[in-house]
């Protein structure tokens, strides 16, 4: 490794080639992302409301007024709720699914393939599908529960704020649990069989083996799933847009959706930019915490 390293960084033409290799990627990603990002950053310090003339510099006012607005914190609260519950459920169900798929049984291969379906389904199709299933007048969920005798009346599953949020979470969990399951399954297969044997000899039962062998070995898989799902869940927009548009009574308005309405319905682009940065900051903060955890894991 070290000699290759020297070769690459030591010789001049090597360095030039490295730059040539890197340049297109830098150009595209940072050209498309960095310029807008810098622009938005600048905008976030201005009162840039399209219906009011002028674009004065206001310092941190957009950030401060967002932070002191109860609507912002309500949206934040809902986003945390969505992130916590959906990520939590996905991890628990994904772990169970992975443990199951790690067993030998007939049809194991088929089942491993089938769980790819929800994950591959486009988010918008997923949202549309669940909205149709929840439909208050013709939905399959109502039909199923009525025919089973569990409810007597058709119910509007997206009709009250609290219920709607949870039903959107169900749709998200259905789609994303398989991804977590696959990540953990891949991780499970790296556990050496001898460890279980050793644990058995030491007198550990099934639960003991799970706690002392499986869980510690699953740490990287669990952490990666946690990071990926948290970031995605915190940015959630598409499924809200297609299923509820933030309603009813703002019950499903997450921070990304709130930012969207601030910028596009209220034309407050300065405020929208500040909100986008606040969201990004929360995500970066969470990620740093997670990465620290992963780091420790790698070195320990």
């Amino acid at each position: 490794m070290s000699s290759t390293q020297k070769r690459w960084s030591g010789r001049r033409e090597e360095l030039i080639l490295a730059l040539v290799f890197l340049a297109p990627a830098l150009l595209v990603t940072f050209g498309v992302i960095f310029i807008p990002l810098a622009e938005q950053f600048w905008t976030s310090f201005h009162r840039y409301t399209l219906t009011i003339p002028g674009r004065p510099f206001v310092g941190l006012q957009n950030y401060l007024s967002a932070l002191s607005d109860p609507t912002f914190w309500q949206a934040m609260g809902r986003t945390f709720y969505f992130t916590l519950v959906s990520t939590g459920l996905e991890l628990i169900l994904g772990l169970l699914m992975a443990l199951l798929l790690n067993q030998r049984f007939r049809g194991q291969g088929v089942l491993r393939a089938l769980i790819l379906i929800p994950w591959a389904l486009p988010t918008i199709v997923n949202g549309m599908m669940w909205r149709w299933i929840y439909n208050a007048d013709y939905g399959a969920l109502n039909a199923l529960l009525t025919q089973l005798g569990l409810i007597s009346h058709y119910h509007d599953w997206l009709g009250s704020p609290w219920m709607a949020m949870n039903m959107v979470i169900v749709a998200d969990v259905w789609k994303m649990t398989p991804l977590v399951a696959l990540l953990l399954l891949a991780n499970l297969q790296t556990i050496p069989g001898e460890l279980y044997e050793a644990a058995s000899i030491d007198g550990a039962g099934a639960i003991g083996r799970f706690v002392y062998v499986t869980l510690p070995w699953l740490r990287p898989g669990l952490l990666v799933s946690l990071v990926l799902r948290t970031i995605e869940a915190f940015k959630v927009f598409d499924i809200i847009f297609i299923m509820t548009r933030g309603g009813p009574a703002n019950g499903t308005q997450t921070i990304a959706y709130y930012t969207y309405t601030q910028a596009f319905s209220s034309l407050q682009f300065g405020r929208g930019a500040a909100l986008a940065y606040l969201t990004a900051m929360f995500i970066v903060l969470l990620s740093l915490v997670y990465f620290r955890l992963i780091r420790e894991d790698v070195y320990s």
Partner: protein
Amino acid sequence: MKRIMLGLAVVLVIALAAGCGSGQTAKNQTTGPITLQFLTMKQAAYSDEHVNAMIQKFMEQNPGIKVQVTFVPYESLHDKIVTDQASGSGQYDVVLVDEIWPAEFAAANFIQDVTNRITPQMQSGINPAVLNIMKVGDKYYGVPWILDTKFLYYNKKMLAEAGFKDPPKTWDELLNMAKVIKQKKIVEYPIVWSWGQAEAVVCDYAQLVYSFGGNILGPDGSPQFQTDGAMDALKWMVGTLKDGLSNPNSTTYLEEDVRQIFQQGKAAFALNWTYMYGLANDPKQSQVAGDVGIAPTPAAKESIGVSGSMGLAITKSTKYPDAAWKLIEFLTSEENQKPYASDSLPIWTDALNAPDLNASPELVSVAKEQFASMRGRPEFVPWYSQFSTDLQVALQNALLRKESPEDAMKPLVDQVKQLASGQK
């Protein structure tokens, strides 16, 4: 597996090559005389097919002007215009504007002042209340194109079954009829509304507030939704849900859901725009075709129709304002509107009496009455969009009975003050 990969690779390459090809041709086409970009709405009022036919005719009459039409759903229309004009390098020349946006768009400098272009015929021939939907202050920012208001639709068969001959004239009468219909188990929930979290709920609310003699915002933008008439209206709305007379799912419905429920014969009464008249009477998609009655909306103190019209405007970014105006003049002209009156009634007062008007006489006679009493939402303030967003949430909090009507409306007072002072 190798074969699959190979096949996949071939598909990828073909698709990619095709992408390059079509991109090229699209660029070459734009080198004509003048090309106008027209942004309009799909699936409401004028059908896509009819708009295309109008545009075809316009291009035949004006060989120097090409028009490219973009249809977007209503829900995307506002944001499309905002993104386009806020970018400072907009691509659209003529845009369809809901009557609640001109104040906002004028303040944001998205659309052009066309006061000097308004012709004397327009001034005299168009009902002033209609022409004014595109007026901000004393300036015109466009010409109305789609004239619309909400009507009371009722199921004639259900009313007859319950023993009623005529549609209700007042909201109380409507409630009494609904009670009888519910008691006789003709239908479980007699009334259906579009009270989902969207502009739709504000339309129904405004209509009720006005007819109860209340007001939402004063002419200076001061809050009036807490005063008697407005509170009465909101309490009335909540009451119909409490009593099980309104479909409880109304709080997630938009106009199309209302039509669906009504067409399925699951409601005796519904409030909706003109377009439902034709569709609910179409036996191909409606189970109540032939039983659809239409009437002016009931009154509490008076019968008021809420205006839901839309107009055409020239964008600030256009390079061809004169050609754009030509298109607007053509589309809004009486000759162009009459043949398509079954999609949307003409804005021209005379046209409603014209013998060659292509619309149902029953609809036209009710419409004439309703148009005379038409009133807009408080769209004269440039911060209407934001206000409406907040109002929708307050209304939903009351309708879902999360809060009492008084408590639900309370935070709105502060929000209005902040909006008016430009702080929010």
